[in-house]
């Protein structure tokens, strides 16, 4: 069983139960997982071609000329309108993430003059405060799962407690998927908890690769493995096998 395939399944599972919203994963494994969810158990989400249209068929990654059944037009301005409407579930990356789900994709060091400029805030501030957000971190380590992020692009639960009601009412960090496991914030103080660990990974491995104390349930579940049908669909959606390159083996 391949770890990258497990990660794609874990990502797809983040969208289980979603319907009539824009499933908007960003990054290689997230796009594959999102399209897989739509092709299987979440048929009522909509997905983009990563340019400007929604397509009903799961488009293969890295095949620009693939046949597509277009169902609607979503230029960037419409994407922002959808963000603010709340009918969206985004999955973003995180260079750093902390126990309350604060995400940093902006910079390492002082944001005013960073040691390393990263992507920036991008759409994270607006995403987090308007609709459900999940994260994908392909390189789980003490450098990515940190005690404190250098810059808050996407605010986590502690920052949102400071904002308070009613401003925080749409904030919903759903899951963090890493190459080692799946994590949630379903704890009394919304600190990060192990939701499941991937087959072949130990709890100790996860704890050692995390700079903060994770909440560990009494019974740690194992991330499910893909079905035969799902493996076939992953091949269709990712004909070049790009997801294998994103997950360290």
């Amino acid at each position, binding site marked *: 069983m391949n770890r990258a395939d497990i990660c794609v399944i874990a990502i797809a599972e983040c969208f289980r139960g979603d319907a009539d919203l824009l499933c908007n994963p960003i990054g290689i494994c997230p796009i594959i997982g999102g399209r897989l969810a739509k092709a299987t158990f979440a048929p009522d989400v909509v997905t983009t071609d990563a*340019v*400007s*249209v929604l397509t009903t068929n799961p488009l293969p990654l890295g095949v620009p000329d693939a046949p597509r059944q277009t169902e609607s037009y979503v*230029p*960037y*301005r419409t994407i*922002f309108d959808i*963000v*603010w409407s709340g009918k969206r579930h985004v999955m973003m990356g995180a260079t750093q993430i902390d126990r309350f789900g604060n995400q940093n994709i*902006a*910079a390492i060091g002082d*944001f*005013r*003059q*960073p*040691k*390393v*400029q*990263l*992507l*920036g*805030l*991008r*759409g*994270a*501030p*607006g995403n*987090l*405060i*308007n609709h459900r957000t999940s994260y994908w971190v392909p390189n789980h380590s003490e450098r990515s799962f940190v005690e404190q992020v250098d*810059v*808050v*692009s*996407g*605010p986590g639960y502690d*920052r*949102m407690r*400071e*904002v308070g*009601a*009613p*401003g*925080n*009412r*749409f*904030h919903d960090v759903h899951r963090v998927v890493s190459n080692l496991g799946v994590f949630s914030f379903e704890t009394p103080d919304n600190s990060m908890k192990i939701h499941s660990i991937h087959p072949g990974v130990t709890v100790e491995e996860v704890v050692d690769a995390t700079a903060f104390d994770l909440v560990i349930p009494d019974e740690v579940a194992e991330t499910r493995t893909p079905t035969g049908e799902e493996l076939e669909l992953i091949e269709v959606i990712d004909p070049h096998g790009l997801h294998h390159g994103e997950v360290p083996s």
Partner: protein
Amino acid sequence: MANKQMTEDDFIAELRDGMTIGIGGWGSRRKPMSLVRAIVRSGVKDLTIVAYGGPEIGILAATGQMKKAVYGFVSLDSIPLEPQFRVARQTGTIEAVEYDEGAFYLGLLAASHRVPFYPTRAGLGSDMTTMNPDLRTVRSPYPGPDGGEGEELVAIPAFELDLALIHMNRADAAGNGQFLGPDLFFDDLFAMAADRTVMSCERVVPTENLLDEGSFHTLRIQRIFVDGVIEAPLGAHFTECPPDYDRDESFQKLYAATAKDPDAWKAFKATYLDAPTHDDYLKAVDAR
């Protein structure tokens, strides 16, 4: 209808030190690059550039003409972070005001509608305020969702622009602009937000031919918001301008490499940015 066609020299004559200039397009997509090079040739300085940023931010940072950048992001798309911008940020040579991507749209919209701000939830709880200590919040005058006090929101200030530069696929001489690619981006708002707008285009066509290549839905720049029209075939090069041309990825790589090598930057600037006219630039690109 007045003929608004102008030359690059006319355009350069309008430029002043300290201007706030909005630049349309998105990342490395449909950027008015011939006009950006005209800015480089003009030598004007202390500019504030407002953009969904691409190579124009990196170039004007590297030439030292940009004092301040106001942006939603700065990217070359196929190269996720603009490399000259990265250098400018890490060495602290520019003042940077970064907005959430959607919040940035509201700053353009507010200026277009001549209101001082538009409210949004985007930014609350994030470090957007760290980068922008002047940012203020506003309390809704209406009751909150529970009937109590009104909700506190971020007031995104109007991005008032002295000048907007946009690049369209087609335009007429009167200033009606047409996009034929997948996305207008926010070019209509840049034009509305600015005191003056200069529009370059791949081809100037007679008004009666504007519907030859696209439906009326593509006629999204109205001449009432445009002051000057410059025909510049390949004017967005090396950024993409579909359906007329794709991004010139190999040229973009050449540009990106200048961020790590001051001599490569000097050569790039001398060969391409300092080319006296757009035609000379195209010849230099062809001769590569």
